[in-house]
């Protein structure tokens, strides 16, 4: 039976650095998927995930077991993604112009992204950062609104509104493409 996250955290805090690798193995893919949809760039997503795990390790003593480790980690990741997006804005690179490079986008089976996924990515890029973050957390990882609130710091009502608007906008964009 796999050790619980909290038990692994206690091992790491007790000096077993390598135990942190279990948490990396356990959450790396989920983090990468969220970051990839939020940032739209494989390179930025990998950097954000790497930095998030390092920050999680550094501040592991601040994790409280009453909270799910995944939620705590995702909060760090979301903040890191926001930092990356902010950095892009300072460089005056709009999200949509940043990178939509299909060659870097490979799914778990090793296949390149299909056209549908590419279209979804472009539609996500057209959302506001808040909307994109909300809809990705809601559907890419099936978080509840309460969990999303803990991760993002936003209220449940605001998150529901963001998801609703994001979905309406995405449907519109994807429909436009379908009829183009």
């Amino acid at each position, binding site marked *: 039976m796999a050790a619980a996250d909290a038990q692994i955290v206690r091992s*790491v*805090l007790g*000096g077993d*650095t*390598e135990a*942190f*690798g279990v948490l*990396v*193995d356990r959450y*790396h*893919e989920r983090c*990468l*998927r969220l970051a*990839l*949809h939020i940032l739209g760039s494989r390179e930025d997503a*990998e*950097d954000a*995930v*790497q930095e998030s*795990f*390092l920050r999680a*390790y*550094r*501040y*592991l*003593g*601040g*994790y409280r077991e009453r909270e799910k480790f995944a939620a705590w980690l995702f909060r760090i990741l979301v903040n890191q993604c926001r930092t990356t997006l902010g*950095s892009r804005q300072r*460089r005056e690179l709009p999200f949509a112009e940043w990178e939509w490079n299909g060659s870097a986008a*490979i*799914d*778990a*089976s*090793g296949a390149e992204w299909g056209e*549908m*996924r590419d279209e*979804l990515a472009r539609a996500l890029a057209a959302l506001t950062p808040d909307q994109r973050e909300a*809809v*990705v957390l*809601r*559907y*890419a*990882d*099936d978080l509840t*609104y309460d969990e999303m609130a803990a991760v993002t710091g936003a209220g449940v009502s605001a998150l*529901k509104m963001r*998801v*609703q608007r*994001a*979905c*309406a906008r*995405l*449907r519109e964009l*994807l429909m436009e493409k379908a009829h183009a």
Partner: protein
Amino acid sequence: MRDRTGTLPEWALAELRRPVATSDILRERVMARVRADGGAHVGTPGGRSVRITARPAVARLALRHPFSGALLALAASVAWLAFGSTIVSSRYGIASVPATPAGRMIVLGDTVDSALHDTLRLVRFVLHAPGAARVSIAGDFNGWSRTSTPLAYSAGSGVWSAVVALDRTSREYAFVVDDTQWVQPDSTNGGAAGSTPVPATPLGGDST
């Protein structure tokens, strides 16, 4: 019960949830940085890895090897230069790596003229370690490789140095002496006796 405030086509939901490819390399990068970060998990800012800071820096040599004490310590300096942008005068120092309790404290040299307007900058890494056989720089810019960015040695001065073009996201690094010892500047310790300031050379000119 599933909330229905927002819905997407099934294919879009499937695409959002489809697992993405990861690799052992990514996993190892994370763990390499974790290992290099040392054992601080106190939940307070700082940690033990390096940040390039806008402060005069002090270096610490982690003495992990029995004969590493023969190495004279170090000093480091860093110069930033943005490509094609206005030169701004300021001073920068360094920081770095995992520490051991036996670390030896030495003062670092001042530096430098710099500018920070663009995505690339030249950074001069300087380490005074006349007893070292090899010195390299490892950081987030080279995946924490201990060997890929060697410093060149100047026999007359005992100084190892290299100039590296870094992008704006590069923030953390450490010196690696003789492949095994990590050098950690410590900006909290200024002016230790026996220190060896290294005068830094501004990287002037327009490098557009």
